[in-house]
Structure formats: structure tokens, C-alpha cells
């Protein structure tokens, strides 16, 4: 027990004030996961709107595939992205392997089905009513989409936050394609895993606290926005 408490005390000391390396890791984590979430959302939100509002052939199959994709282990996505960006892969010439670019790509692929499925599930409740309301009062197609987005904005926000939480906490896949290179691709999760394995328990704890604080800040921020 004292081992854990000592770790906790030393971890806190490392954060007050945080060193340059820790700040760099936190910044990269937020940048990579933020960019991945934005990219995934740009595809996932229109996809969810389309699935919620349009009837077309093969829609149920598509929704089934997206729900299945949610269950694909992150490490398999890591494998796929590794294959794509490694020197002998189809995107090998871009030299993305072990760069933040590869990490963003993998995390975006991981977040896309999650954000789509969550947004779709939440939209089901509001989309039909918002559609009926807008159409019956004379909305054209652009106004219809705008009304549904406005009525469904909290649904989207919740889905996006869930996607961000998923990717910022991901370790194995990020390690595979990023390589955990100090100062270049080291992020919170890969650093925690490395430092702990190296026996630097207190650094792991310090970084863990930062990760928890980031998650807390995001969730309270979300509640504050929804309360408005």
C-alpha cells in the first residue's frame, strides 16, 4: 500500500509544476486525438444524418456493418494502418509510419464507427420528429438538414465526446503505428505503459492523473454545454 501511496505522492510532485517533457506529451495527446476525432466526426455526422433520414436499399446491412465495426479490436485497426503506411505498403511512399499522421489515421478509423453508431442511435429519437416538423412547415432540403442538426446537436456532441474519450485512452494500436518515440510520437497512454514497465511507477501515476483530469474536464464541459 505504501508503494502506491509513495507513487501517488511522487507523481503529484512531478506535476507541480509539470516538466517540459510531460507538457509535450499532453499536448501531443490532445492534438493527435483531437485531430482524429475531428476527422472521424466530419465523416460520421453526415453518415449518421443520412442513415437517420434516408430510406435506401442495403441500409440495414450498412447499419449492421457499422455496429460490427464498433466491436473490432483496436489492435486490428493498428494492423491495418501499419500495413497501409509501412514502407512496403500502398501508402508507404508518404513515410507516415511512426509519425503523428499514422496515429491520427488509426485513431480516426477507430472513432468513426463509434461516433456514427452513437449519433445514429441518439438521432432516432429526434430525427423523425424534427423532419416532420420542418417538412410540414415548408422546409427545403437544406433547411431540413439544418433543422435536424439543430435539434440533434446534443446527440452529436455526446457521440463526439465518446469518440474522443475512446481514442485518447487507446494504447496498443497507437503504440504499433506511432512507435512511442520520445519527443515525436510519445502520448499519454504509451508513456504510462512504457514508464511503468521500466519501473518508473511515479511517472506512470503522474501521467495517469493528467489523463483522468483531461477526461473529467471534457465531461464536465459537456454537461455545462448541455445545461445551457
Amino acid at each position, binding site marked *: 500500500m505504501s508503494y502506491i501511496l509513495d507513487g501517488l505522492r511522487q507523481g503529484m510532485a512531478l506535476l507541480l509544476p509539470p516538466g517540459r517533457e510531460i507538457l509535450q506529451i499532453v499536448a501531443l495527446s490532445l492534438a493527435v486525438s483531437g485531430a482524429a476525432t475531428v476527422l472521424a466526426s466530419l465523416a460520421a455526422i453526415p453518415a449518421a444524418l443520412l442513415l437517420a433520414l434516408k430510406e435506401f436499399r442495403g441500409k440495414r446491412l450498412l447499419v449492421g456493418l457499422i455496429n460490427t465495426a464498433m466491436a473490432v479490436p483496436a489492435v486490428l485497426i493498428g494492423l491495418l494502418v501499419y500495413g497501409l503506411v509501412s514502407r512496403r505498403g500502398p501508402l508507404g511512399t508518404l513515410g507516415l509510419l511512426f509519425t503523428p499522421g499514422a496515429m491520427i489515421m488509426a485513431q480516426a478509423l477507430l472513432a468513426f464507427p463509434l461516433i456514427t453508431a452513437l449519433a445514429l442511435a441518439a438521432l432516432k429519437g429526434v430525427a423523425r420528429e424534427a423532419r416532420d416538423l420542418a417538412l*410540414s*412547415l415548408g422546409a427545403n*432540403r437544406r433547411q431540413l438538414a439544418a433543422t435536424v442538426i439543430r435539434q440533434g446537436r446534443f446527440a452529436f456532441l455526446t457521440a463526439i465526446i465518446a469518440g474522443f474519450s475512446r481514442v485518447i485512452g487507446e494504447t496498443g494500436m497507437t503504440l504499433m503505428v506511432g512507435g512511442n518515440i520520445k519527443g515525436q510520437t510519445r502520448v499519454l497512454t504509451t508513456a504510462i505503459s512504457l514508464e511503468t514497465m521500466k519501473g518508473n511507477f511515479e511517472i506512470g501515476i503522474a501521467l495517469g492523473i493528467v489523463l483522468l483530469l483531461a477526461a473529467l474536464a471534457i465531461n464536465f464541459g459537456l454537461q455545462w454545454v448541455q445545461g445551457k
Partner: protein
Amino acid sequence: MDIRIEGLCATAGGRAILDGLDMEFSPGAVNVILGPNGAGKTTLLRLLGLLDRPGRGEIYYDGRKLSPMPPASRTRLRRRFGFVFQLPLLLAGSVEDNLRFGARLRNLSVSREIIGRVLDNTGLAGKAGQEARLLSGGEKQRLQLARVMVLDPDLYLLDEPTANLDPLSVKNIEAAISGLVRAGKTVILATHNLTQARLLAGKVVFLKEGRLVQAGSAAEVLSRPLSLDIAEFSAAENILPGVLARRDGRTVLECGALAIEVVSERTAGKAAAVIRPEDILVSSGPLVSSARNSFRGTVLAVADLGAVVALSVDCSGTVFTVFITRGSCSQMKLAAGTGVMLTFKATQVHLLPRE
């Protein structure tokens, strides 16, 4: 607006909701769609309002075919409609926000004067600033109607606008609908309320299981139904199932122990008699009259309905409901157990085919 539909079909989850409907609606009148739950009333209204697309079939609006219309024309057409949903769909915001939403979608503005007038006409005067979602059920429904009245559409599509409302709200909405027709608007109204149909309808269409059963004036459809379904739907008091037969040169409906004389071209097969409770005469003894049907019975119960008194009378196992005035009831000292005679003409028996 002139509306005609041809072979209209709709399915949901593999089940046919509308099954090849052909009908015309009367322009500048209230067209009432009647039918039991699941008849397809809401589906039909949604198709007419361009909220959903038909599986098959065609709708003509003032003679223009719907199916080849591009999206922009559909939007223009939809902007001439006002749809009121059965469960109120309101925007978060004030009553006035809701009233202005349709105009905003059209890039128009609405004058304070119009807002005020519409609120007056729907019994919502003084509520413009209130939060719409905090209104009572009846007020929400009236707000839905007000919201489309602001846009002054040519066609009103109303899906059970008075379901679950208090009598005063119902009256307000019915008055507003009457006003629309006076202003030359076409109204298509789905309802379960027969009194409302009789009160408002220029035309009644009766649907069952996605098919048209009968169309005509309210009096035709409700008082002279062509189908037992309509008689049962309208909860007609005396629906007596039996079998037609010839007896001593007369056509009768054998109904339990009774043989009811009827006027019918058919002389055999299953049928049902519908007799209006106000068409039956009650007497304490046999009457000398031209009426062909007279049965002895016993009063089972007396119920005061306000305007009339309803008697249940058992005649050899068949129970009739009869309406008489309160005066007659007290004069004849009718009570449960009193012996009476029931008399009605053969021409007052409305015969319907039965399967």
C-alpha cells in the same frame, strides 16, 4: 385545392397499409376520413402532405401529377399545405417562435397583426410569449393549428386534431375549421369522432384495412351505411344479425326467435338489420297501425341520456335499444320489468350484407 388519388399503395414492414386507394376529395369543403385504428388514415394524410412517398399509385394536385415532380416543385407544393399532427410537434421556444417558424423557412415575415388575429381565432389570445412546450395539451393542439393558419395554406391536413382534448378545446378547433371552409380552404380531417364528422363534413370517406369502404355525404355514410363495418364503427345501437327468408309471401330476417319483416331485393342469405333507436315506437299494448313489425318485450333497463331516455328492451332474447322522450317515459311509468310492445316499419329496417 382539387385532390384526386389513384391506386395509392403504402407498405410498412412488409405489411400493406394502403391497398390501392382511388378517391377524390371535395375542394373548399371538409373531407372527413373515418375508420377504425389501423385503417390507414394517418398514412394517407402523410402521403397527401408529401411527408412520405407512396409505394405505388398517383396523387393529382389540381390535376398535376405528383410522381414526376422534382424536389423543388414538391417543396413549393408542400408550402401550400398545413399539416397538424395527432401528437403536437412543437419547436422549443415561445408560442410566437413557433408561429414564425414556417414564415422564416419561406424567408417571409409575419406581421404582429396576423399573429394576433390567428391567436384570437384559435383561443390562444395573450399567449404569444409563453414557452410552447409548457402549454396544456389542448393549447398545444391549437398552437399547431395556429402555426399553419399563419401561413394561410390552401389545403389543411389535420390528423385527429381533437383526440384527447377537453370539450371546450374541441369546440374551439371545430369553430376554427368551420372558419377555414368559409374562407374557401380545403380541409382533409382524420377523426374518430362521429359527431364531429356530422357537424363538419362536406364529404366522408370510410377506410378499413387500407381500402375505401364508402364515400359520400355524412348523412349517406353514417345513416345509410353500405357496410356492416361502418355500422359497427359508428356503434349503431341496434345491429341484429340474421338470415333472410320468405314467409307467407313476405321477406323476413330471422333473428333468433324473431322474424323481422324487411324490404329487400335479396330473399335469402345472411344479413344484418340496423334499426335506429328513435325509429322504434314503445306502447303498453298492441297498436293498430300500418307498421309491419310489432314485438312484445320486457324493459331491462332505463338510462337517462339527458336529451332522451334510452330503454333496453328484451324481445324473446333479442335486446333492442329504444330512445324515447323523458315525458313519455314518466307518463308510461316505465321501469325495469315493465312489459311493453315495440313497433317499427319494415322500411325503417336498414339491411346490410353480412359474411
